[in-house]
């Protein structure tokens, strides 16, 4: 009996289990998942909680509901991955042996890594929306806020869901308009990158969006520390930005277990072959989803397309056959832009977001790089798709590789 061990029962780990359980014979393969958290979060929904569009009930279900039949589930804290011994040690000292390991331990925010960010003001005038607790505290803060300087700051790239900060600031603009407060609110988007839109074609199509919505931009701002008493951000080159309400996207790091086990890079992400997710150091270890150091977005859509590629490759790899499928870095993301509209982008390692229609060429129903109501509905429908299709490993009618059909190649 061989054992596949999956660390992490989040989006990527759960999809791996759901895809592989029916494909690996029950009498030949035991599949075990380990996770320390009992709750599965629909993380794209965190964005909507501060604005009262979603409640916590929309984004929370027990992890156990999504463990496929025939998969063993251990709820425990992982102490160490001992890849050279093919085993994982749990916090209580138990060893779990494996033949193959999939690391899907994700990424999380680390406000404590930025001096001054995590202090008594955290949850009061300093907020995040990348955790349920953070999003709930922010919802309370926004409900009673009467206006002033709202600053959204991305501490450092890469972050999970790199479009979420843009969505937040767009939704904030709409939210304060609806409350009749927009004239009292200054919105500023602060990024370490050289703009809100850094890819030439997206910049050409969407470059005016911030201006049109009267949102100020502070590019090339690399945060060194926060003075939470004086309410200001201070950059490495001594620039200062004052705020009344700070929404921060703190530094994102991979799991500490990965770091402790000596398997991570400088941000605790596992270095893998970006075509097939195989560890660069171990022939029987894979990392998938946000835990891997792939040069593409940390996003559920990437995990979804990646798992499709991984499943076919894994079945060949365990038979000693070469892995034939190559992941292209495919991602697609809806971007809420406020007032019932949204954008959609579709891209991969080599191709930047282009305009056009998705998924059906010329038809859509979704429109790439343009604000439409249909894109917004796509985003709202996705929650159902996530809980009922994706996590169950049911096929979606979307090819895992990015297609040029339907896209307008503007030949940048």
């Amino acid at each position, binding site marked *: 009996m061989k054992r596949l061990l999956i660390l992490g029962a989040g989006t990527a780990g759960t999809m791996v289990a759901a895809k592989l359980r029916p494909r690996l014979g029950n009498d030949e393969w035991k599949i075990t998942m380990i996770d320390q958290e009992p709750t599965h979060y629909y993380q794209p929904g965190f964005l909507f909680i501060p604005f009262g569009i979603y409640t916590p009930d929309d984004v929370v279900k027990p992890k156990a509901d999504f463990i496929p039949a025939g998969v063993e589930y251990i709820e425990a804290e992982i102490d160490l991955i001992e890849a050279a011994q093919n085993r994982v040690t749990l916090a209580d000292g138990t060893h779990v042996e494996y033949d193959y390991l999939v690391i899907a331990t994700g990424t999380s925010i680390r406000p404590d890594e930025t001096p001054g960010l995590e202090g008594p003001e955290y949850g009061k005038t300093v907020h995040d929306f990348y955790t349920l607790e953070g999003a709930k505290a922010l919802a309370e803060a926004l409900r009673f806020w009467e206006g002033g300087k709202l600053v959204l700051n991305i501490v*450092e*790239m*890469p972050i999970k869901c*790199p*479009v979420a900060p*843009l969505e937040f600031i767009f939704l904030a603009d709409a939210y304060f308009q609806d409350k009749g407060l927009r004239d009292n609110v200054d919105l500023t988007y602060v*990024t*370490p*990158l*050289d703009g809100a*839109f*850094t*890819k*030439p074609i*997206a910049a050409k199509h*969407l470059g005016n969006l911030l201006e049109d919505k009267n949102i100020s931009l502070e590019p*090339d701002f*690399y945060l*060194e520390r926060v003075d939470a008493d004086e309410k200001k951000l201070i950059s*490495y*080159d001594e620039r200062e930005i004052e705020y009344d309400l700070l929404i921060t996207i703190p530094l994102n790091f991979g799991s500490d277990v990965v770091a402790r086990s000596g398997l991570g*890079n*400088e*941000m605790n992400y596992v270095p893998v072959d*970006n075509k097939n997710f195989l560890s660069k150091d171990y022939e029987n270890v894979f990392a998938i989803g946000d835990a891997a*150091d792939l*040069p*593409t*977005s940390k996003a559920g859509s990437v995990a979804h397309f990646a798992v499709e590629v991984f499943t076919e490759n894994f079945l060949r790899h365990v038979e000693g056959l070469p892995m034939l499928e190559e992941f292209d870095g495919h*991602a697609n*993301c809806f*971007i809420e832009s406020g007032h019932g509209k949204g954008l959609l*982008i579709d*891209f991969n*390692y080599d191709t930047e*977001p282009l305009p056009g229609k998705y998924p059906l060429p010329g038809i859509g129903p979704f429109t790439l790089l343009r604000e439409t109501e249909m894109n917004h509905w796509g985003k709202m429908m996705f929650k159902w798709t996530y809980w009922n299709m994706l996590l169950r490993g049911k096929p979606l009618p979307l090819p895992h590789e990015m297609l040029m059909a339907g896209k307008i190649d503007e030949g*940048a």
Partner: protein
Amino acid sequence: MPVTTIGGQEVHVDDEGFLTEYDEWTEDLARELATNIGIADLNDDHWKVITFLRSDFKDQGETATLRRVSAVGGIPTKSLFQLFPKKPARKMSYVSGLPKPAGCI
């Protein structure tokens, strides 16, 4: 991609002037590129950054972040701001003939 001539050498660049072909970069070209953005002399510390970025890109397929240059390359972030003032991430990639740090959109 447009072709331009820098220091007598024909190279492919993007709309913002960043080199698009890894192998077209040379040390002489780096000096020309540095002059273009107001860095008259590349000193040993500049070269340490450039050498790290070039070799890291070859392994990783993407331009190292400031954190990576600091954590793996051993050059503190504060120094990067002195070497490549105001916009170190952008400037160091430009001089090294690598893509600028970018978001997904």
